């Protein structure tokens, strides 16, 4: 007996087709994100390399003013000088733009979603499997509809990164708020705090370090997306790696890869420094 194949693929295709009719909607989203991306990129293009390096070093110095920092400062100095020297500077700033834009979107969408999950069991139960899906679905798969809706370039790259990188921020926000000790919530209630006051004065400040760990994870994950994003036209270090693969050029591949690693370490250490700041 022959069992008919379920036409799941056809269904999804027709869904994607139907969604493509809302081109106007997707265009406005594309324009909106493109504006953010352009703004970031414009700033990086205006900044001379040496000033950029000084700003990064200054930021690190300030963020880690209470802890050991000289090793990191030296690493950052030589790392960035190496990227400059290897002529990957503009690629690096493009990658940084991609990461920061997706990081921004992740925070703006992910933190409120995490708060909502912590406050409502129903939201929690609905969103959790979606997050699982976002993290486990192979990243290549959602490149296809991304191109269909948002065309080719930075915007679909950013959105693909957001889908892949957002779950840790949502989950950690949720976790952080749930971890606030019950007696502190009770104390806030006993003194007549409203839900907003409780959130802003007690829950978010106490969830801060968990939340920051989530954002840090999201940034790292979106960095890991740069090569995949380059396949749909997101420029940056990922493009260099992608081209090196095409040319079977191990040297170029590794140098671009090292630039990604340097950028990753700098982003990671700085966001962690913000997190571990103690009273």
């Amino acid at each position, binding site marked *: 007996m022959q069992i008919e194949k379920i036409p799941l693929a056809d269904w999804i295709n027709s869904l994607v087709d139907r969604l493509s009719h809302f081109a106007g909607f997707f265009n406005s989203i594309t324009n909106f994100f493109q504006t953010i991306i352009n703004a970031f990129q414009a700033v990086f293009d205006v900044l001379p390399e040496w000033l950029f390096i000084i700003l990064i070093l200054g930021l690190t110095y300030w963020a880690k003013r209470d802890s050991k920092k000289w090793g990191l400062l030296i690493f950052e100095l030589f790392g960035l000088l190496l990227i400059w020297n290897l002529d990957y500077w503009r690629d690096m700033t493009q990658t940084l733009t991609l990461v920061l834009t997706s990081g921004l979107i992740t925070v703006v969408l992910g933190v409120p979603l995490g708060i909502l999950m912590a406050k409502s069991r129903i939201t929690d139960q609905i969103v959790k499997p979606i997050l699982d899906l976002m993290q486990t679905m192979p990243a290549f798969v959602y490149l296809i509809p991304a191109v269909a809706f948002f065309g080719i370039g930075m915007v679909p790259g950013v959105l693909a990164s957001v889908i892949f990188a957002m779950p840790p921020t949502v989950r950690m926000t949720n976790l952080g708020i749930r971890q606030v*000790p019950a007696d*502190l919530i009770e104390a*806030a209630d006993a003194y007549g705090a409203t839900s907003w006051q409780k959130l802003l004065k007690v829950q978010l400040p106490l969830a801060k370090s968990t939340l920051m760990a989530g954002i840090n994870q999201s940034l790292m994950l979106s960095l890991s997306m740069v090569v995949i994003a380059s396949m749909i036209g997101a420029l940056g270090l990922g493009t260099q790696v992608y081209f090196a693969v095409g040319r079977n050029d191990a040297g170029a591949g590794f140098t671009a890869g090292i630039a990604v690693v340097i950028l990753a370490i700098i982003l990671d250490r700085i966001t962690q420094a913000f997190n571990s700041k103690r009273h």
Partner: protein
Amino acid sequence: MTVKVEVRNLTKIFGKRISKATDLLAQGVSKEEILEKTGATIGVNKASFSINAGEIFVIMGLSGSGKSTLIRLINRLIEPTEGEVLIDDLNLTALDKKSLRNVRRKKLGMVFQNFALFPHKTILQNAAFGLEIQGDSQDTRSKKAHNALELVGLHGYDDQYPDQLSGGMQQRVGLARALASDAEVLLMDEAFSALDPLNRKAMQDQLLELQNKMHKTIIFISHDLNESLRIGDRILIMRNGSIVQIGEPEEILTAPANEYVERFIEDVDRTKVLTVNSVMTEATTININKSGPRVALRRMQENSISSIYVVDDDDRFVGFADADDVATLIRQGSKDLKSILKTEVPLTTPDTPVQDLIDKISNTPIPFAVLDNEQHLLGIILRGSVLSAIAGNEVTA
């Protein structure tokens, strides 16, 4: 005395089949049976009592007796299943969320067992939390919080964080937080239970001292009978969610409502709680204006005592006569009792704790005279009655 907090028929049932359990409870079915039939637990069972303004009202019970639930029903941190809570005749159980928040902000302060201080806020900010929630300006709340911290004896810690302070100091901050918002009613949930014995006693003393100045209405939860007896003006004893007895500390000790309370008070150090009032016995006296030495001597022989207290027409204390002296007086043929009266006798007042007498009473052969403010002789203290009171026996005159 005005009633500040009134609790009527307050009931809390935890579980799913609450309406069924409520019906069963109304029929008088026992807690265990309800649990078996419906799976619902009776947290608090029809509690009714009233608390006077300016009183320290202790709710005492072992863990699981429902005392922590009861205190949370009062400010509705836990929603009551049935019953009413009135503060100044305002029915809290009928309020909507917004009005309830207002009552919590203005009238109620709460102190928690594990302090519940905010680790991300400084001591000053913690103490100012209630004011911050009320929307006071930075200036006002800093000033009020600072004053509250001074009041509880914390100087110079304003800018520290809770984890830099010891447990006792942290709880002082908890107390300051409740005092800063000028709440009229303080709910203290096992506030001193997490402290070591020395700190606990210091905090109890401080609370009593503050209460002398401020006259708040304090509802204090405790599982420690000695603590309850020490600080409570009245004590409510709970068991299995029901009220077993409500009374002043002496009442609880001298007239326990049932066997449960009796077992509870077995190990209490009674000398700290019992006052002269409850151990004094009726004095054998003679009236100096009516009787002479012969009556005095006969009265002593009748009662087989070797000395007698002498009073005037209004029962005011005049002096004390010894049998030997009275006999000498008779032999001399004199009728002037006054000449042999001794006035240097040990005196005390009815509300003196027995503890303060123990040392003296063992060194004094003459029974203590108990006088009120107008020198009326109320009774006397015999060594035997002190001993039997400490042992927990009924004092009989």
